[in-house]
């Protein structure tokens, strides 16, 4: 006998939007329980939209290990002294107080999909009817020969917002004129495709504002091309001539070894030395996703593009960087967009509310220099379960200064808007 999903069961009973008198819930609970693991751009948005739109029909629990959330998006601007750390760090207070979300400041270590529980580090078990897995990324440290979690304390990746960001900033701030930075960007797919190149721009911007005219940044890439390459290349030439050198793997022949302590990156071509190494390794879905059996060989989680529902477990939704979201890049914007579709589908599952066709969006803004912003983005829809783009745009090199300034200012408005949308 085929196991009925809750949706099929509800449809069979002819249950509509207003007719669920007794919502189906976890044993011992009056209301359906939604548990969200990960309080970033995906998880926190899912929590807020569920709590806001279900109007009390479901209980929402958000499990996040960090007390506050420092966004990885805009962290490059902090590195470049354009934004303060406080301005990119957000509290969960509003989500708890204004939306009635049960925010648990803890680390989720496991998911029992048969019992439908999430286990915390202290052993506490949290039952769920619907589960959202939004753990972001974790580093595959040994994907870069010689790199490790320990080495990241000397050569930070700063590809997760928070302590790593502050560590990289401290190291940048301690550099003197003539000191060089070596950056090793990650292979595809990774969080925030233009991110490493915006970061190089912001490092160069910092050197410029501090009069460090002889300091350089060498990017030893593992990819033959990168997002918005034409725009960055032209921008670096305009704002920071001679400061940033990007070297293709076809030129350096491959990364052979990174020695964080010695400050060296050995390639087939040559050994490069820098006072500061910024190594950003290959990434995978946050480890709980693998622990829960939700990942495939890629290290990320397959989902149904029409709902963000895991193709492995119908009671679980995976959103944000941890998901395999077709044409959508891994970004905070994408995570926030996917969270809204997931929340709508979860409410549909648990309360019988309306479910509309999935629509997604993403725009990635990058700051190249003062009053010089560029963007790339698209709209998306699900086509037979795969997310594809429906319209796209990208900045061009023949835009005038006024346009670039407006684009940069637009990004400031976006940051303010999206963080309100995520955290309340």
């Amino acid at each position: 006998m085929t196991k009925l999903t809750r949706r099929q069961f509800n449809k069979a009973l002819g249950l509509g939007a207003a007719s669920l008198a007794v919502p189906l819930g976890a044993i011992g609970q009056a209301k359906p329980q939604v548990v969200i693991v990960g309080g970033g751009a995906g998880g926190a948005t899912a929590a807020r939209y569920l709590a806001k739109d279900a109007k009390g029909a479901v209980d929402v629990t958000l499990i996040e290990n960090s007390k506050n959330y420092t966004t990885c998006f805009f962290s490059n601007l902090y590195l470049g002294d354009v934004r303060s750390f406080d301005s990119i760090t957000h509290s969960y207070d509003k989500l708890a107080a204004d939306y009635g979300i049960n925010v648990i400041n803890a680390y989720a270590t496991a998911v029992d999909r048969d019992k439908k529980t999430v286990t915390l580090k202290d052993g506490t078990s949290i039952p769920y009817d619907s589960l959202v897995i939004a753990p972001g990324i974790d580093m595959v440290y040994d994907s870069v020969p010689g790199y490790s979690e320990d080495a990241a304390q000397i050569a930070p990746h700063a590809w997760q917002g928070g302590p790593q960001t502050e560590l990289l900033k401290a190291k940048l701030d301690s550099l003197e004129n003539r000191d060089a930075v070596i950056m090793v960007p990650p292979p595809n797919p990774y969080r925030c495709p233009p991110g490493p190149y915006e970061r190089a721009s912001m490092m160069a911007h910092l050197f410029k504002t501090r009069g460090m005219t002889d300091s350089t940044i060498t990017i030893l890439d593992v990819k033959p091309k990168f997002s918005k390459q034409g725009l960055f290349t032209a921008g670096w030439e305009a704002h920071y001539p001679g400061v940033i050198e990007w070297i293709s793997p076809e030129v350096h022949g491959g990364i052979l070894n990174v020695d964080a302590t010695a400050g060296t990156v050995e390639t087939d071509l040559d050994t490069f030395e820098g006072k500061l190494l910024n190594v950003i390794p290959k990434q995978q879905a946050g480890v709980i996703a693998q622990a829960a059996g939700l990942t495939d060989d890629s290290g990320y989680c397959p989902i149904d593009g029409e709902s963000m529902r895991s193709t492995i477990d119908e009671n679980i939704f995976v959103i944000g960087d941890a998901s395999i979201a077709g044409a959508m890049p891994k970004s905070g914007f994408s995570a926030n967009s996917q969270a809204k579709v997931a929340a709508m589908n979860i409410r549909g599952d648990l309360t019988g509310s309306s479910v509309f066709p999935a629509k997604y969006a993403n725009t990635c803004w990058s700051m190249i220099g003062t009053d010089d912003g560029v963007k790339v983005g698209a709209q998306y829809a699900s086509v037979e379960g795969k997310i594809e783009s429906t319209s796209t745009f990208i900045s061009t090199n023949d835009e005038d200064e006024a346009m670039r300034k407006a684009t940069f200012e637009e990004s400031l408005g976006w940051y303010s808007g999206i963080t309100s949308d995520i955290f309340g």
Partner: protein
Amino acid sequence: MIMLRNALMIWLVCLNATVALASGDKIELNSEQLESVLAIEADAEFGAYLVGECLTCHTPTGANGNIPQIHGKDKIYLASALLEYRNQQRENDVMRAITAALSDEELAAIVTYLGAQ
């Protein structure tokens, strides 16, 4: 009375006239397109869902830097603006891409929902 006011407004703004918007842009409106969208009976719940995407940049509490306020704006104004973006008659890459992916039904739902906020 409201219908008369709306009809008059559409007629006035579309009579080979251009509308100067707060941003200083001047646009030409297509009255048939506008009336067609405004005539659609919109689903408010669908509108609320679609507007979720707008909230990423357009904050409900007001203008956000150079990102204008849309909540509570006049429905005809909103429909005109979105149609102009979709017609590629108004500048902004992000808005052009967003509206390129919107059907008339979706436009109607969005402006109905926003106009009521």
